[in-house]
């Protein structure tokens, strides 16, 4: 009984800020409710919101843009983050200073990062164009203004910002590997490549998967940095699912429809989270 009294505030808080909004969003997704017209009669529309959502080519496009962003940014972050973790793990002179410097981007606010990268990408005065033109004669181009380049521009900024985070998680892996494993491998005359595949990679894999889980879910919900950087443009090239969700909910005020969209995204993240946790547990058991 005493235990229940102690955990009751937490349970009430969870019910109020997690469970109730979720159930309310599910209920709203079956109605034509508009939050800007509270006096309007709310009608039960059944699965109509879901039908419209899942037959819309626009929504399909936003989800493809999201997939491009999530897949490529995770690919680069894992590749670079893992590489940096192996490098920093070598404990060279000044590695602590380098670690701090590398970690700086992830300590910044995504809105700030989005804003200053718009200046870096600026076609006339931005340093990005200057550096590219220093090496190749690319002329004046806008990373965030051209349809072919804008999706890569947001991938690049997200990679710049969150690679240190992946590195930090991965760093725990190599540091937990006892030296005698490598010594035994040396005795067996295993090559460096063989040592990497048979010792380093399997030991780091749980940490890598954890990083992929965290970044995958976060990138699927990405909003602030991309809004500051491109506002979803040019056209709707970089309009990710979460950006469109905000537009539907708070610009067009189609609350019922946007609730259905939110449930779709929630279910996807929840399902993916389940898969990752399952595989993470399996890898840990090995």
């Amino acid at each position, binding site marked *: 009984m005493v235990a229940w009294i102690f955990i009751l505030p937490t349970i009430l808080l969870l019910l109020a800020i997690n469970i109730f909004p979720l159930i309310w969003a599910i209920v709203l997704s079956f109605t034509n409710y508009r939050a800007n017209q509270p006096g309007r009669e709310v009608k039960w529309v059944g699965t109509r919101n*879901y039908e419209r959502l899942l037959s819309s080519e626009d929504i399909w496009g936003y989800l*493809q843009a999201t997939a491009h962003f999530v897949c490529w940014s995770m690919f680069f972050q894992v590749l670079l983050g893992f590489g940096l973790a192996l490098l920093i793990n070598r404990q060279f002179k000044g590695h602590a200073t380098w670690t701090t410097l590398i970690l700086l981007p992830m300590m910044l606010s995504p809105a700030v990062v989005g804003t200053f990268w718009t200046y870096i990408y600026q076609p006339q005065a931005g340093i990005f164009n200057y550096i590219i033109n220093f090496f190749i004669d690319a002329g004046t181009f806008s990373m965030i203004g051209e349809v072919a380049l804008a999706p890569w521009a947001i991938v690049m900024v997200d990679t710049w910002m969150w690679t240190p985070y992946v590195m930090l998680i991965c760093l725990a892996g190599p540091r937990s590997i006892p030296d005698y494993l490598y010594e035994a491998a040396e005795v067996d005359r295993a090559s460096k490549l063989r040592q990497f595949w048979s010792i380093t990679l399997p030991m780091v894999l749980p940490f890598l998967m954890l990083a992929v889980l965290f970044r995958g879910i976060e990138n699927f919900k990405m909003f602030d940095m991309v809004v500051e950087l491109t506002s979803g443009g040019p056209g709707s090239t970089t309009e990710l699912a979460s950006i469109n969700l905000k537009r539907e909910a708070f610009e067009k005020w189609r609350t019922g429809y946007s609730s259905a969209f939110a449930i779709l995204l929630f279910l*996807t993240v*929840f*399902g993916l989270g389940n*898969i990752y946790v*399952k595989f993470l547990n399996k890898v840990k058991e090995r």
Partner: protein
Amino acid sequence: MSGQEQQEARPGLRRWFRRGPWEMAATALIGLGVFMLMQPFSLWLFSNSFAVILVGTLSFVIVSHFPED
């Protein structure tokens, strides 16, 4: 009693409803649903993705309560 004998002696329902294979099937269903949701090839696949993810996720929640083996 050896492991194999234990397996044979297990009641019918417990033998069929083991977590491992069912969880794997639910996981595959979720993965398929997410692919269908974000693939650039067919609107029909996109339209049916929600149902596949929903069935996969609900099944996962249910089968994760099945006995281990």
